[in-house]
């Protein structure tokens, strides 16, 4: 079947143009806006290569940056530690319960993100039974709070991004040919060795995809810190949001958002250099 050379470009054009005009070009403009000088848009911010926006906002908000890195990092590790056993159980042990487990994993997507986070505010609020249990067990001091602390924010991030960890892990584990594990066992590998030498390497792309899909949104998130963190646990997303929307200090906000983007790009780049890129780029299948 002969096809015109133009066909793929005609198919691509509308969608890719949309992405270029409303994603790539806006990134350029947010970079440009970060170099504007002046005090407000109404009084005339002008483009004048004002690099001080970067140094000023970075020195002003470096705690928020470090905090975001820390919270997102811890949440990602927790998601992996919770997610891998769960994905493994669903793939190999669940049997007739498999669909129920899968349903439970994606069920949070059926309710709005904000309402889910607000539900955690209820669960962790001072009068909640969960908090009194934690107090009885002396995990939390008798008169201690859970809401408006760092662990509350991390718990919220872990909860909200856990499905993004479990689903790619499950997809990777489901593809594991169980005969390979049997072969390892036949060759006298213990269950643990077989897992470490066979299952884990095969599912590495799933781990890479899962950690990226968890870390990237967690790093930029401001909803969890807003509802669960109180005044002392603001993340960089909170800063960018309030600078843009409430304080209207656009150049500083744009500078911060640009640094966030660049920082994440750098982290992702270094990470996939070590871990392989196929997980992020999707299947590089040849067209039929």
């Amino acid at each position, binding site marked *: *079947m002969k096809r015109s050379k133009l*066909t*793929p*470009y005609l*198919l*691509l054009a509308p969608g*890719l143009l*949309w992405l*270029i005009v*409303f*994603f*790539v070009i*806006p990134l350029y*403009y*947010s970079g*440009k*806006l970060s170099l504007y000088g002046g005090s407000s848009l109404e009084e005339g911010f002008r483009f004048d290569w004002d690099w001080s926006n970067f140094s000023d906002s970075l020195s002003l908000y470096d705690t928020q940056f470090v905090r975001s890195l820390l919270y997102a990092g811890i949440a990602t590790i927790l998601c992996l530690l*919770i997610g891998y*056993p*769960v994905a493994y*159980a669903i793939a190999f*042990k669940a049997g007739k319960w498999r669909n129920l487990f899968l349903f*439970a*994993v994606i*069920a*949070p*997507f*059926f*309710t*709005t*993100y*904000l*309402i*889910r986070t*607000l*539900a955690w505010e*209820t669960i962790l609020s001072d009068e909640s039974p969960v908090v009194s249990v934690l107090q009885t067990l002396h995990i939390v001091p008798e008169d201690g709070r859970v809401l408006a602390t760092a662990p509350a924010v991390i718990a919220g991030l872990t909860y909200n991004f856990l499905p993004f960890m479990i*689903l*790619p892990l499950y*997809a990777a584990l489901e593809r594991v040919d169980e005969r390979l594990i049997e072969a390892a066992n036949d060759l006298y590998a213990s269950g643990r060795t077989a897992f470490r030498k066979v299952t884990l390497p095969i599912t590495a792309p799933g781990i890479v995809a899962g950690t990226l899909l968890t870390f*990237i949104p967690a*790093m*930029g*998130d*401001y*909803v969890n810190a807003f509802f669960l963190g109180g005044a002392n646990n603001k993340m960089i*997303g909170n800063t*960018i949001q309030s600078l843009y929307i409430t304080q209207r200090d656009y150049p500083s906000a744009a500078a911060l*958002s640009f640094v*966030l*983007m660049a920082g*994440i790009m750098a982290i*992702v780049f270094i990470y996939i250099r070590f871990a392989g890129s196929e997980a*992020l*780029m*999707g*299947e590089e*299948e040849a*067209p*039929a």
Partner: protein
Amino acid sequence: MAWLKRNWLMIFAALAVIYMLLPIAVIIGFSFNDPAGRYNFTWVGFTLEHWKNAFGIPELNDALLKSLELAALATLIATALGTMIALALVRYEFFGRKASNFLIVIPMATPEVVIGAALLSMFLIYGISLGFVTLLIAHVMFCISFVVVVVRSRLIGFDRRLEEAARDLGADAFTTFRKVTLPLIMPGIVGAGMLSFALSIDDFVISNFNSGTTVTFPLYIFGAAQRGIPVEVNVIATMLFALTVVAMVFTIWQQARAEKLASIRPDQEGEPAVPVAATATSAASG
């Protein structure tokens, strides 16, 4: 003890499931609460009042309708554009294929706050007033990539001989596409559309930056959070949850039935079903 050793993984998974479902239980449970003050945080007593009054708050209704309208339009546009991209990527070898793939992946690997801020920057510099149109632009933008990923996974398992058979029987290219290709990839397109709709109706961060004075359902909740969220929000969230569950069960049932019908025909290699869960999986694994 031996039992514990054998089953610890399942116990751990069951605990994780409880963790995943706990907030949903809270949302549903508190839709029957009768709070004393403005804040619906502590359990006071059971009432059906708020279920009877579910659509009794005009601002909430407006926000919900706005969200549905926005999600429907964004889904329509994003699904069309994304399906076209997926067709091009899977079926053709052309210059710029790798770059196109990259352009599809990058928005999914960018934090929402950066996407929202960047779009707002551009709208500000050009003095474009924010509202429904800017929201629609933003929602289509972040849905396209997910549509491509889902439809692409369906196209990869596609048996091209079916199209060749249609051509051999005298169908022209357009008829082949309409009568053979489209029906076969339809489950993928429907899955992608459902995912887009869910993403759009749930979006808060990007909308927060580009909404102007337009209020969607999540934006209403965010605004109401400061002064106490009405119980009716829980009621509507519960309704949406139930609707989604029913829709999902129906889709899986339909697909299972379609698979069964397909397997009756002889000489069918039996393409694996793509249930909604698997569709979401492939979308999440990017």
